[in-house]
């Protein structure tokens, strides 16, 4: 369980977010530029909140009043950035196994379900948009994270594949019993996978 109450000041916008992420999928929707990615990056440890705190179980990740900031390396999150940032110079295999936390069985499961088998030894930088997105997703899963942070994980996939990967994701999250914050632009997707549904508007997080 992760609870947070943070603010992040951006030149264009003040982002204020407070909430509790329980085991299972929480979807995050909201209009473009409303602050979704900023919230995800704050949880991953890539953005320093201006004020506030983030606590996982009893571990304090962030507390600006005490000047505590846990490095991203210590948080063991599974982060999938918006824009499918792969390690362009590495093969798909080395991309996915970069975290070294997964094992042989998880790897072959990921490779199979994401249809990446035939690209195993290809440099990730030359892949198509959807292929790169699957690599980024596989890489986050292989890290066996304590929480999954997915920033539009399926936006570049066609509907068949999207359907299938979505089911696989729901299964894995259920099996691992971890919380997952899932940003999506697709109302149906949010309805179908979200056990909890959050919404973001003009920097303000609404957790219903």
């Amino acid at each position, binding site marked *: 369980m992760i609870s947070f109450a943070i603010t992040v000041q951006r030149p264009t916008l003040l982002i204020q977010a407070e909430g509790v992420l329980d085991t299972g999928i929480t979807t995050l929707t909201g209009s473009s530029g409303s602050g979704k990615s900023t919230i995800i990056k704050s949880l*991953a440890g890539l953005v320093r909140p201006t004020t506030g705190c983030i606590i996982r179980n009893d571990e304090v990740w962030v507390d600006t009043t005490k000047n505590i900031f846990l490095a991203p*390396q210590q*948080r063991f*999150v599974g982060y999938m950035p918006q824009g499918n940032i792969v*390690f362009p110079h590495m093969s798909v295999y080395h991309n996915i196994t*970069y975290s070294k936390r997964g094992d042989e069985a998880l790897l072959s499961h990921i490779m199979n379900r994401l249809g990446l088998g035939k690209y195993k030894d290809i440099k990730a930088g030359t892949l198509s948009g959807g292929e790169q997105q699957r690599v980024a997703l596989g890489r986050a899963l292989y*890290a066996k994270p304590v929480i999954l942070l997915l920033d539009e994980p399926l936006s570049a996939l066609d509907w068949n594949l999207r359907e299938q990967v979505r089911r696989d994701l729901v299964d894995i999250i259920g099996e691992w019993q971890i919380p997952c914050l899932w940003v999506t632009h697709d109302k149906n997707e949010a309805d179908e996978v979200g056990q909890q549904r959050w919404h973001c508007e003009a920097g303000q997080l609404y957790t219903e």
Partner: protein
Amino acid sequence: MSPLWLSLEVALLALVHIIVVGLLLNYILKRYDVKGKALIDSVLTLPLVLPPVVVGFALLVIFSPGGAFGAWLQSIGIQVVFSKMGAVLASSIIGFPLFYQTVRAALSSIDPAVEDVARTLGASELRIFFTISIPLAWKGIVTGAILAFSRALGEFGATILIAGNIPGLTRTMPLAIYSLVEVGDYSGAFTIVVYICALTLGLLWSVHLITKGGLFGQRR
């Protein structure tokens, strides 16, 4: 040893030192919020601006057995003045700023979002530096190494002061050119200049081949 082989050995040894220290320093300055980065940076760039003789003179003051440090080095059996080690030291210090600065520019041009993803995957900063930052900055690193190696190969002013101009021991190609010109043997000097040109050409050509033109042209 002939000036050609000696030059190559000295420049290669210098390059090894430059790369190790250059990468290490770049790592530390990128990783840690060191106070006075600009100062460190300036000091490391000084050997480029100072005339090589000045650098040579400074090295002489530091390493000469007449001084405390030099005397101590001598007592443990290390002789820098008038030795190959002196030549390597001079070339390393003179060539260093070129590698250091070029690599720093290349490293700071990398999209930090890529390194950020690696952080979330639990990779140590050191691992990120070697597996992400350096491979993504390789063009700058190869260029920096070529610049530093070339400069080391041509180093004259500092070398002749600290290492002397001892045939077979510290007489590198630039020193040999100087010595031959001094005794009026222009054709001998010209021969060595041709060697240096051929070497540079060969070096850049092989880098061109190894990188399959990637350093020179754009791939599509």
